[in-house]
């Protein structure tokens, strides 16, 4: 299998190195299979804002992740394109039969970017920090499996064992993006309880080190962050050149999306991600003249949906919502709404055909887990009317939908004003619902206020929202799908599953968690998607494509649908011609 092949390459390489280096500590480098490129050059990447911190323990936002991940490395990495795991700092790993023990062999002879050696102690230290309750690292939650934190043991200098309290199907994926920290630099801070303040933007670059392809060179506040190549990086290409190819990586701050497009057009920044379909259309005709290339990486993991408020109003604060929940809780009502919505129009008008309609939260972009058998609903007003009729609704004065007690069906749709596309979706949904006599009113609201209503006050009737799956694996979605999950947004704090189908989903999700075989897991997850498409706890709407672009001269550019879409493989990117090396 693939893993074996890699291992073989590594062994071969190890041999080569040991021959060359003689008695020196052998560097166990990773040889990549992608196209071998030329050294040199600088790559400019525009970001909405500067990183908030260089500290992987506290970083929570994408802007920080994007920069930090270039300077840090993880044990096991998820290939953004294949969506599968592959070895990184871990040379190899084995899982015990029951799936509760996980033994990782580290590459030997690796050095941090400041030249200090890397070994199992650094791994132990890193996990100690991540797992420390006093540190409150956001990563900690990932490392709690089966309700208990994982246990990390040092087997020898280059071997570490992880023990879970329960079998865990996605165990390998947990290690992705979990930066291994340099103990020699951070232990003092940690012991003094100041780990959270470490590695801020104003920390001198030589006090920051990592195992990533690049290391920090300079920070110009508010303007840009410069990274330079890490001479100790642990990957080589097919020709034996040490990666990365690029001498320098420049993250410039461009706060406005439009300005980012203009920058890219002008060639000031050389890759662009997160393009809206409209901006894509603007850039498209200029590909030849301005020497860049655009890519449609296909539907991403973002899914947009119309969610009804199904929370229990235990304190009796929201009589209006409770009154309307009589409709919302009726699956036929939700199905009718779903049938009335023209997903095709959303994809066409909002995404310019660069997106897909959804039946569930799993987009076709999630290759391993998408269930193609679940059909995306096609707009059918007849079906919608039929469903409403059976649910006891009727029409009055021509085209006003009224419920069984004669009340007109009317509700508000909350939408975050900071996301234009969701606003547009809401407008289309509103117009679609008008066709079946439902008076929906769009209420745009500043993002955090809207979130506050969803999460805390529960004072909303319906909302158009979007979530992004953290990974192409089903497990992270448990936090949304499980009836008692923390991000079970439409019905928070649900004590026990309210309906049989919810109970079924709970059960299925639990089952997939401990099922190690992919085919079996897939079958379980297919069933989950079937149930969701049928019961529609929320009305899934559409998923936009991930649209990116890069200078045509950039080699090894392989856009992905998981975050950092464009520069996740910055270590492999290179300039074909010296002209591109700015």
């Amino acid at each position, binding site marked *: 299998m693939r893993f074996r092949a890699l291992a073989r390459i590594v062994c071969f390489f190890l041999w080569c190195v040991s021959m060359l280096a003689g008695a020196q500590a052998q560097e166990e480098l990773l040889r990549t299979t992608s196209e071998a490129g030329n050294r040199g050059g600088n790559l400019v990447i525009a970001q909405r804002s500067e990183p908030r911190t260089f500290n992987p323990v506290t970083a929570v936002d994408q802007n920080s992740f994007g920069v930090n991940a270039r300077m840090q490395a993880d044990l096991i990495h998820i290939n953004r394109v294949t969506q599968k795991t592959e070895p990184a700092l871990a040379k190899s790993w084995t899982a015990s039969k029951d799936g509760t023990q996980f033994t990782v062999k580290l590459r030997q002879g690796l050095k941090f970017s400041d030249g200090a050696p890397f070994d199992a102690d650094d791994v132990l230290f890193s996990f100690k920090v991540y797992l420390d309750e006093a540190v409150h690292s956001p990563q900690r939650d990932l490392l709690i499996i089966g309700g208990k934190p994982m246990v990390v043991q040092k087997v020898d200098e280059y071997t570490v064992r992880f023990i879970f309290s329960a079998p865990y199907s996605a165990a390998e994926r947990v290690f992705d993006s979990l930066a291994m920290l340099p103990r020699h630099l951070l232990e003092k801070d940690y012991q003094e309880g100041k780990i959270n*303040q470490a590695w801020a933007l104003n920390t001198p670059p030589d006090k920051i080190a990592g195992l990533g392809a690049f290391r920090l060179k300079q920070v110009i506040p508010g303007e840009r962050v410069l990274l330079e190549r890490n001479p100790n990086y642990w990957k080589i290409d097919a020709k034996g050149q040490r990666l990365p190819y690029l001498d320098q990586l420049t993250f410039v701050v461009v706060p406005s999306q439009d300005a980012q497009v203009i920058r890219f057009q002008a060639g000031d920044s050389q890759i662009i991600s997160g393009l809206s379909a409209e901006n894509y259309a603007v850039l498209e005709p200029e590909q030849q003249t301005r020497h860049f290339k655009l890519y449609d990486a296909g539907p991403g993991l973002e899914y947009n949906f119309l969610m009804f408020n199904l929370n229990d109003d235990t304190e009796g604060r929201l009589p209006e919502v409770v009154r309307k929940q009589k409709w919302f809780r009726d699956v036929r009502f939700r199905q009718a709404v779903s049938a009335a919505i023209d997903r095709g129009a959303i994809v066409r008008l909002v995404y310019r055909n660069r997106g897909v309609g959804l039946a569930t939260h799993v987009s076709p972009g999630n290759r391993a887990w998408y269930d193609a058998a679940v059909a995306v609903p096609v707009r059918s007003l007849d079906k919608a009317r039929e469903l409403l009729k059976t649910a006891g609704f009727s029409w009055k004065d021509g085209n006003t939908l009224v419920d069984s007690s004669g009340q007109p069906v009317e509700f508000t749709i909350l939408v975050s004003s900071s996301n234009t596309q969701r606003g547009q979706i809401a407008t289309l949904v509103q117009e679609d619902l008008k066709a079946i006599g439902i008076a929906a009113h769009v209420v745009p609201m500043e993002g955090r206020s809207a979130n506050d209503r969803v999460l805390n006050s529960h004072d909303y009737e319906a909302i158009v929202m979007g979530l992004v799956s953290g990974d192409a694996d089903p497990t992270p979605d448990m936090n949304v799908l499980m009836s008692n999950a923390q991000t079970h947004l439409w019905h928070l704090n649900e004590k026990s599953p309210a309906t049989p189908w919810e109970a079924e989903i709970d059960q299925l999700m639990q089952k997939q968690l401990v099922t190690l075989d992919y085919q079996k897991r897939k079958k379980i997850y297919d069933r989950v998607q079937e149930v969701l498409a049928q019961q529609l706890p929320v009305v899934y709407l559409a998923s936009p494509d991930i649209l990116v672009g890069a200078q045509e001269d950039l080699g090894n550019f392989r856009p992905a649908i998981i975050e950092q879409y464009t520069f996740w493989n910055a270590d492999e990117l290179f300039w074909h011609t010296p002209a591109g090396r700015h």
Partner: protein
Amino acid sequence: MIRYLARRIGHAFLLLFGVSILLFLMFQAAPGDFLSEIRLNEQISPQTVAHLRAQYGLDQPMPVRYWKWLKSTAKGELGYSFAYNTPAAELLWPRARNTLLLSVPALLLSWLIAVPLGVLAAGWKGNWADRLFSGGTSVLLALPDVLIALLALLIALKTGRFPVGGMTSVSAQDQDNWARLRDLAWHMVLPVAALVIGSVAIILRHVRASVREVLESTYMRAAEGHGLSQRKILFGYALPAAANPLISLFGLSVAFLLSVSLLVEVVMSWPGMGPLLLEAILARDLFLVIGAVMFSTLFLIGGNLLADVLLYVFDPRIRRQA
């Protein structure tokens, strides 16, 4: 003079104090906080969020937080930014400098354009130039600042002669000081132009109105009677006499320009306070917002003080009284 200065400084403190309290109250009133975005991240548990909230002090009552902020401000930190985990003042200083780098030239340029043009326009009463002027300033006033900035970027893109945003080029940083200065100046052209276009119309109208008022006075008629040339009358006599309200306006225009530059900076990716403030507002990064507002309030106070000094220099009636 000392007493006067002391009074002004007292007012300034009062102002800063009042503004910060009001911001705290408003922050309290706006739903959601810095951590409510994280809450939507499916991989982070509510417990962690609660811990973080405690760590940031978001769970404490407002007076306690205000008191802590005051203590931190006394140390010159202006509180800790939630997002950056560093003192807000540290983040703000370089940004404030950049903002001033943009708005001070824009301020001067606006006035340099507005004063001669406005004075001339005051003399044009009723003819076609006057109508053109009224129409032109109305169009300028109707143009939203964001649009102006975007159009400026578009011009840069189409002509290729100007940098499309940013403050310095990546390539310039390794060059000598002179080249870096030129690079900086080159980057300033468009944002400054956008700011000037965004603010000049209102100043123009004020200059014209003030000078026109003075032109109707007896002493201007008398000056005309002495046969002084039109230029001398407009610039040598009318302008100094009309300067008093204009100088007060100069102080106020500092604040106005700052609020215009907020949006221009965002669109033109100028690393000033604008992008930081907007980001901080949207992220509910309380102390950063307060810090930024404190800074701009300081600029405002500075502008008014400057206006006072200018008044003192330019108006003999005030000068001789002292």
